């Protein structure tokens, strides 16, 4: 049977070749017209009959019937059921990505029955960790990352909400058709709420070059990323290949590419300096929120004005008595000082240009001045002004701050003093400058305790002069506080106190907002979409309408006519509706194949993102069709299908090799046994933390920063500024919550084949390399975790070496060690003590390191 399939594949490829060679030069006929109907994946989805079996004792459910039928045809026999201990471990990892506890295994083995297994599956599917494991699979597909890549690799603010949306969707068993609709068109759905807006963060996950050499090309590169990913993920089609010409393998003409792109053409791409975050409050609440903010802001400005007026009155009188005062209040060397104020908690300077500011204004005095803040903690400033350099020569800039600052002159960073720190660590830099007026910019943030900003400069012919407004003698409010009674009337003082009180109230007034990185369009009308000759955005060809791929029927849909005031065209909803129609040939097939793949290690179609002519043929087409049809008929819910797969006999087979079967089907094309698999990078790290008990199973929230090895930081162009800090308890959160920075990835994860985030990752690599061994034996992380495991077993069984070793093995393999294994472990301890002079504690720690390196720990049976 496999041979037949293989030949069929070859036939399809040859067919494509012939078609290509006949069209390559003329491009008059599309390959789609002739070959599309024949390809299996483009056929309408029909529900095959479940095969009748001569011996039905093996099968648990219809899945098994399909599998068993094929095995019989091939003269293969299914492997026996695996033992209960292996089964529970397999099921735990498949559903949650976490190991069971040794106690759970023991209990399961003792009570093992059909009903007990079903209860286990129900329990696992109800666990919130199900969403974390399966959400991770989805994040691979949509190339989830939290930065934009390229030179600045700047943050994608709030994007973690999309990650949590995905996790929650799996946990809620959200029907897949809704899941698709929300991600592609959540904002265009009726009654779209915060959840639906967050879902459209899907469009914000990709790479973004904020400084493209050719902005037009950059725009279409960004759209291409969306087109390619969407086609890969939801349709299993490589439409992206038809950007420059008709697809060379698939029946996808170039028109199809641009017709598909037309659905997305009106999306606002990332823009430098523009805050892409979008409020996710319902619109009435959002309007009220905005009104309140502007009302409050106006009140603050009015009060400030009144207070400043009083201060001026004070100053005039004060100066009469203090003629020298203000001499060092020389006019600022800067003009056009403008500030933006941000309200958020930072550990390092963010890319403020990507964030939404709370407030902004001008500072006529021309100094950097953080006194205009509206709070004393958790805020940031961007000051921008023009600095006049009087003559060419050498200038020195001085900067001291609590907390982080960055000073830029004429676009170049000249001092970076980032991170959370106190004052009295002045940074300076000396530069050769030419005369002229240059843009100067200061970014500043303040987290908690302490604050301060001192900026100054010196140059030819002048000593150090302040650029910031922070010296105590210039602190006018303070002067007024101290000497107000001498120079202001009682009435004025009362007024001042009144204004101050009201100002404080206004400043304390908080208007809660919720933001997400979500899609936005330019408005109700989409720009025309043209086919781009050879993919060149400067060479537009004919105009094409939004249309579905010809190979799948290819009709031009009726587009809604949105209200002129509408914020979107409604086109994405049209696409999402088509994708989730019960008769869409690919959506359900592609998804069911993925569900199969993540449970069984490989898809029924191995090329999970490529169901086209050039992809791999399904090993069990009828089974895939049946699953897809049943899935759609059952309302697109996943947990029901998951349960069916997990309860199948096929899932319960042992991984043992069987010589006769192996000789016939070495690649296990027919699923005659269960394939062993290595843990993924995330599963491995989570399992290490689970073994020593340090894992923090808190769900959701902003991403965290476990410590990054300094060797990795050194590869960044800004090593001192490359990675954030999180509280210690967050260091042991599940790996899915680790911040995903495209240019800086943890070696433990990359060594174990973390998904590449530059494009959709349908199947993880699973390599075996010596660097993995080096990491697991020698890295600081592993050695520290091994000690933590040592501490755990010591605490649980003080002074009982035998119990400690037994427990260490059990925590890593979830089973009790056999006698000869325990003997080997004792032998190891003896060696460590005798030959290397270790005490019991170090010897156990060493054994724990060994245990975390076991094949049995890293491979699943």
């Amino acid at each position, binding site marked *: 049977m496999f041979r037949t399939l293989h030949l069929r594949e070859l036939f399809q490829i040859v067919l494509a*070749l012939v078609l290509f060679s006949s069209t390559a030069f003329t491009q008059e006929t599309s390959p789609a017209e002739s070959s599309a109907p024949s390809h299996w994946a483009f056929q309408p989805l029909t529900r095959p009959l479940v095969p009748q079996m001569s011996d039905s004792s093996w099968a648990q459910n219809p899945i098994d019937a399909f599998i068993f039928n094929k095995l019989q045809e091939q003269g293969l026999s299914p492997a026996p059921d695996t033992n209960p201990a292996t089964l529970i471990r397999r099921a735990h990892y498949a559903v949650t990505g976490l190991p069971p506890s040794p106690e759970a295994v023991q209990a399961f083995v003792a009570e093992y029955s059909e009903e007990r297994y079903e209860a286990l599956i129900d329990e696992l599917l109800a666990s919130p960790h199900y969403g974390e494991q399966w959400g991770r699979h989805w994040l691979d597909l949509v190339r989830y990352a939290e930065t934009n*890549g*390229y*030179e600045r*690799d700047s943050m994608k603010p709030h994007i973690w909400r999309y990650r949590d949306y995905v996790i929650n969707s799996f946990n809620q068993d959200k029907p897949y058709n809704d899941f698709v609709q929300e991600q592609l068109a959540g904002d265009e759905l009726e009654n779209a709420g915060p959840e639906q807006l967050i879902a459209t963060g899907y469009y914000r996950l990709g790479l973004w*070059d904020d400084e493209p*050499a050719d902005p037009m090309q950059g725009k279409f590169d960004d759209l291409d990323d969306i087109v390619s990913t969407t086609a890969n993920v939801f349709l299993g089609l*490589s439409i992206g*290949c038809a950007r420059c010409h008709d697809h*060379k*393998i*698939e029946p996808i003409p170039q028109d199809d590419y641009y017709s598909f792109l037309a659905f997305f053409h009106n999306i606002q791409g990332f823009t430098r300096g523009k805050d892409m975050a979008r409020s996710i409050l319902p619109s009435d609440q959002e309007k009220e929120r905005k009104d309140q903010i502007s009302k409050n802001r106006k009140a603050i400005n009015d009060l400030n004005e009144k207070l400043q007026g009083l201060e001026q009155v004070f100053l005039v009188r004060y100066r009469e008595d203090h003629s020298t005062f203000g001499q060092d209040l020389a006019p600022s060397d800067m003009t056009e000082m403008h500030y933006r104020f941000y309200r958020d908690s930072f550990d390092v300077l963010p890319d403020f240009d990507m964030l939404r500011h709370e407030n902004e204004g001008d500072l006529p005095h021309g100094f950097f001045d953080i006194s205009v803040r509206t709070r004393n903690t958790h805020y940031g400033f961007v000051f921008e002004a023009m600095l006049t350099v009087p003559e060419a020569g050498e200038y020195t800039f001085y900067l001291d701050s609590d907390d982080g600052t960055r000073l830029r002159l004429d676009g*170049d*960073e000249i001092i970076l003093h980032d991170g959370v720190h106190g004052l009295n660590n002045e940074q300076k830099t000396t530069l*050769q400058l030419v005369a*002229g007026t240059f843009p100067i910019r200061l970014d500043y943030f303040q987290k908690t305790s302490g604050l301060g900003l001192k900026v100054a400069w010196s140059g030819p012919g002048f000593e150090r002069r302040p650029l910031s407004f922070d010296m105590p003698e210039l602190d006018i409010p303070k002067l007024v506080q101290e000497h107000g009674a001498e120079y202001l009337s009682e009435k004025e003082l009362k007024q001042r106190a009144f204004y101050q009180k009201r100002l404080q109230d206004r400043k304390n007034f908080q208007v809660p907002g919720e933001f997400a990185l979500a899609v936005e369009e330019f408005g109700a009308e989409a720009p025309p979409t043209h086919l781009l000759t050879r993919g060149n955005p400067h060479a537009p060809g004919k105009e094409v309408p939004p249309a579905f791929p010809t190979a799948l029927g290819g009709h031009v849909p009726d587009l809604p006519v949105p209200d002129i005031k509408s914020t979107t065209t409604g086109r994405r909803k049209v696409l999402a509706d088509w994708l989730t129609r019960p008769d869409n040939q690919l959506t359900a097939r592609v998804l069911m194949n993925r569900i199969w793949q993540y449970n069984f*290690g*490989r898809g029924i179609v*191995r*090329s999970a*993102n*490529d169901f086209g002519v050039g992809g791999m043929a399904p090993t069990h087409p009828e089974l895939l069709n049946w699953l897809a049809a049943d899935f759609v008929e059952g309302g697109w819910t996943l947990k029901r299908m998951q349960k069916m797969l997990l309860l199948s006999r096929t899932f319960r087979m042992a991984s*043992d*090799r069987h010589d006769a079967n*192996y000789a016939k089907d*070495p690649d296990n094309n027919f699923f005659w046994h269960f*394939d*062993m*698999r*290595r843990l993924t990078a995330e599963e491995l790290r989570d399992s290490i933390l689970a073994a020593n008990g340090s894992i923090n199973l808190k769900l959701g929230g902003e991403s965290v920063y476990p410590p990054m*090895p300094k*060797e990795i930081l050194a*590869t960044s*162009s800004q090593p001192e500024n490359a990675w954030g800090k999180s509280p210690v308890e967050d260091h042991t959160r599940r790996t899915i919550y680790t911040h995903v920075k*495209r*240019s800086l990835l943890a070696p433990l994860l*990359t060594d174990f084949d973390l998904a*590449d985030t*530059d*494009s959709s990752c349908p*199947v*993880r*690599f699973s*390599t*075996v*390399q*010596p*660097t*993995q*061994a080096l990491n697991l*034996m*020698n*890295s600081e992380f592993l050695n520290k975790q091994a000690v933590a495991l040592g501490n755990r077993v010591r605490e649980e069984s003080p002074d009982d070496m035998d119990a400690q070793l037994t427990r260490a093995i059990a925590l890593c393999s979830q089973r009790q060690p056999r006698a000869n294994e325990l003997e080997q472990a004792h032998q190891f301890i003896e*060696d*460590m003590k005798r030959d*290397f002079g270790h005490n019991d504690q170090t010897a156990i720690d*060493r054994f724990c390191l060994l245990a975390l390196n*076991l094949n*049995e720990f890293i*491979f699943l049976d």
Partner: protein
Amino acid sequence: MKHNKPVNSFCGQVDRRDFLRTTGGGFTSLALSGMLGTDGFPGNQAFAADGMSTFKNPLAPKVVHMPAKAKSCIFLFMYGGPSHVDTFDHKPRLYDLDGKTIQVKTHGRGGHKNEGRIVGPKWSFKQYGESGAQVSELFPHLATCVDDMAFIKSMTADSPIHGSAMLMMNSGRILSGAPSMGSWLNYGLGTANENLPGYVVMLDKTGGPISGAKNWSSGFMPASYQATVFRPKGDPIMNLKPYGDMSSKEQYRMIQHLNHFNGRHLADHVGNSDLAARIASYELAFKMQSEAPEAVDVDSEPEHIKRLYGLDQERTEDFGRKCIMARRLVERGVRFIQVYSGGHHNDNNWDAHADLKTNHDYHAGNTDKPIAGLLKDLKQRGLLDETIVIWGGEFGRQPTAEYAEGTGRDHNSKGFTMWMAGGGIKGGVSVGETDELGSEAVVDPFHVRNLHATVLQQMGMDPNNLSYFYNGLDQKLVGVEGAEPIHQIIA
């Protein structure tokens, strides 16, 4: 495996199940590959990435497309973009125009401009060697090697912005996600030394270039093909040595015990090649612990060699050390070594926007003697014949100033100079020309893809035939449309 030859032609599709997508090369042992490649009982991960690449693991040396002239390549990456008109591309007219504002179209960081103030070159040029090549005062030592060098004075790239231009020079595309040249070489050629990585990167002491590891990433290929970062001092590779106070002997004992456990586990899983490979990988890792430090033991070099590379002078010590390391790695079969001059931001690299003189004096002074030492040392050992050396940045610089005053130059990707030496590249030649201002390549322009094609060809691979199937396309380093090597400089 029937063939190891990576094939690409479209018609090759028919065969791709067998070999096109077979991953190869990388960083592990022949012993390992022997175990993995043949009788495998492949686990469920027999297919990966696109779901098509078989995992009959990597790593045996591959059959090359044609006889190779070169075995290794050292890419000396002048990050930030050195100015060609101040180094190797002599433009006499520029001196007279100094300070004059003239009509000239430029595209740099500052966008598209139609006129600019010319900055006269800050150094004088002289002719050197039998070839009479023009070299500026910046490189007195390199000037003595010109008869071994081939200058390409008409290089072009697609972007004048650091981030995308770096990706292009390293991976052939301005977009992130493609494998870098070193990954392609290891994919195409396999390993020549099981105990060392086939692709090594050494970074500047001030930090990596912008985009960091993306510059030496394996993109859509497995991580086995990405570069390993070597450090010039201390442990050369991360996690190479046992942690804390564990001795090597103790670790070996630990591995022996681990093997006992894993061996017992394997006995229950007869024939599982992944498990067997993992056992073998520990032995290999252990061997690397002794081999890698030896490979980079620069201190064991004789004094006259150290002096040749400038290790006796403070400012050349750092780069000189990396150049010696590069030579030692070449001797040990490492395929591709990239050494960065410059890191971090602003004037920590060749990105001279403000004061060209200070910037280029500094970076050239740090690297001139070490690079000349490397060329001479390779030559005296007979290694230059089989080692390609490449010098250049991600682009060059404009003849015009970027700001109203000062000597800084903006970026220029429309015309710049790189040079190659060794590995079957002709010495004492120069191809291509920029216009009289050095603003644009006008005679025989070459693209970064031509440079990449030249390297692949010299190392025995057909650049238009080396492909990796990914996302519906036969991906190539030289792009789907292909590129010719620079025939004029090939001996």
